[in-house]
């Protein structure tokens, strides 16, 4: 009989699933992903019924602070008895993108630039050449830069709160590495480093896999992710002033950042964003 490990998580769970599918030593397991941010009541009846759950031997459940959602209750009611449940925290960093507020263009066109920049949004109707527009953006963002230490404290509070209800703890690791290693491409999309970190925690603790196989699996996953860029299809560049104030040692002001089929500098990204410019996949 097949044995499955069910991952109930946001898109970070998909990264775990995709990585594990390529780990040859774990070929005896099927890794299934239920996207907690997308699943609907109908999905529970159609896609995730008894057949889907029958071979689940372990669940990697992404914890969520706050009240238990209907979907999570549904999940819990379907996990086969005896299956191990390992809770791990969601990883996110809001402090690195302090202008991620409202943008009225998102209502009509939510997918073009889904990671908002409210200062850039304010400039959307300005009719200026590139240099002047970018200078204006830099001036306004410098003027309006919020207290980043406070933002970081809020993030740490969230990480700690998620740790408190999870079996895997990540707050200390994220705090220690946030300024030295690029961990996030957007506030919620991960580079390969946190994916490696999560797998190093999850695999050895999964009883159905066992310690010996888990150790081999961790090594394989490390190799697979050596050159991997993580969830990099949309990378939002970090503002140079944020990098300076937060003392981000990994920051390279000339770096190019992937945006679908493009690689843009911070300046190019901001100008495309302000102009809501189309791009290619």
């Amino acid at each position: 009989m097949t044995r499955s490990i069910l991952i109930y998580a946001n898109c970070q769970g998909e990264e775990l699933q995709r990585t594990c599918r390529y780990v040859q030593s774990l070929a005896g397991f099927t890794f299934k992903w239920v996207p907690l941010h997308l699943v609907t009541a109908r999905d529970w009846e159609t896609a995730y019924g008894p057949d889907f759950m029958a071979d689940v031997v372990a669940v990697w459940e992404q914890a969520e602070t706050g009240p238990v959602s209907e979907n999570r209750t549904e999940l819990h009611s379907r996990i086969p008895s005896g299956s191990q449940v390992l809770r791990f925290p969601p990883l996110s960093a809001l402090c690195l993108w302090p202008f991620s507020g409202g943008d009225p263009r998102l209502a009509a066109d939510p997918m073009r630039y889904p990671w908002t920049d409210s200062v850039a949004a304010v400039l959307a109707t300005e009719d200026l050449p590139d240099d002047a527009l970018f200078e204006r953006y830099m001036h306004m963002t410098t003027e309006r830069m919020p207290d980043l230490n406070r933002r970081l404290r809020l993030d740490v509070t969230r990480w700690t709160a998620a740790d408190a209800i999870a079996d895997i703890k990540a707050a200390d690791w994220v705090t220690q590495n946030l300024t030295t290693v690029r961990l996030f491409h957007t506030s919620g999309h991960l580079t390969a480093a946190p994916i490696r970190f999560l797998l190093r925690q999850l695999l050895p603790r999964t009883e159905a896999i066992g310690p010996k196989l888990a150790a081999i699996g961790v090594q394989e996953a490390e190799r697979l992710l050596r050159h991997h860029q993580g969830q990099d299809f949309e990378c939002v560049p970090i503002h140079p002033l944020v990098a300076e104030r937060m003392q981000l040692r990994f920051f390279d002001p000339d770096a190019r950042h992937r945006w679908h089929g493009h690689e843009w500098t911070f300046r190019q990204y901001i100008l495309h964003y302000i102009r809501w410019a189309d791009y290619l996949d």
Partner: protein
Amino acid sequence: MQAAYVFGNVGNLTDRLGSGWSVEDEYAWTIGAESEIRLPLPGDDAAYAVRFTIHPLIYPDLRPTQRLTVLTAGEALADVVLTGRCVVEVPLPPALTRGRPDIALTLLHPDGIRPCDARPVGDSRLLSLCFHAASLVRLDQAAADSAPQAGPVQAIVAGHYTALQLARILQRLPALRDRLAVSYVDLDQTLQDPATLRAVEQAGICWILAGVGRDDVRADLRARLPASCSVVTVPTPQCNALWPFQAPDPRLIRDPLLYPQGRYPYGDRVAAGMAQFNITDDVVMMIYDSLVEKEMPDLDAALQADIDAWRAQDAVCDIQIAARLAEQFRAERWFVAPNVPGAALLRALAVRLLESPALRPLLGPQPVLPDLDRLLEGYVGRREELPIHPRVARHFRLGWWRDDMTYRWHNNRYGFRDYVIDYIRWTPWRP
């Protein structure tokens, strides 16, 4: 959109909010039962509406909806019930906006609830609606946006990956928006999709890429095109000189689940010959380099063979590109893999497509090339760049190549050395 407004401390409305607000960094909550806002206006004679992006505070068990009434000078402009995040459009009375610098709005929101009364949290503010952003739109413009447009000319770009990218480029050029409807036809797939068939049968312009796809599909496509359709054949140049060791590798097997094109689809005969070498990376690389040096073919002859092939394809196509490729071979990164065009080649082909006589009447007076350049800025493609051996790059004195250059390989990024070592060892990688 005439103006963009953003709520919150980092936005541009904070000094326009009166009583009844709790402003946070990225948004503003209405508190109590009534809130005041003085919305800036352009001060001209146009008629406007404001569109607010609002998220209501909902507790399904306690407060499933939130009501909102928008007033100005005692007149109700909008009266809505919100059940989730939405956009609320409020038409502004022209009599109160014409020539005015702003308009005072009163928001009534009688269904506030204190979060601490609904959940175990410490927030005792009486909250109802979270305002994120707003836009000011001209009503005549909004009407124009929704008015039916004259039907655009249907265009087809047929081929494979290059055709798909060219179709996407044409679809995204502002100068052609609403004037040209562009569909891609995959010449490797039998024509059967109803929407594609409809597009083919209505096509006014069809660009067919030469040398790719199935002959039967190409013939079927041509047979279905209307007699009035302008058909233009386009070359699809490829390049082998930059990757002179290409050869089949016996290890290459398609794995539909993990590697549909095979683990390393571009063979390297020198690397393949070292598959059994079980030695350290440094030694592997040293041996690979010495073998490459010994076995390096005549690169100038390889380039000449490519140029000859480009010219041969040009000779049977309506569009010509070979001379440009040959002239600028060192300066432009025409190819990112033997059969994958770089941004420069896509741009050159797109420019040729835009010069098609059948397209000229559709192009307005404004220049198209600045839009094309902005669209292609920083474009590298999404999937694969095949690393180039440094000896090859140096031989051709490629202007865009650097010693420390890294290449995208699906979602990975490799330097040449790491790629070759992984290739020799046939190392699994994760897309």
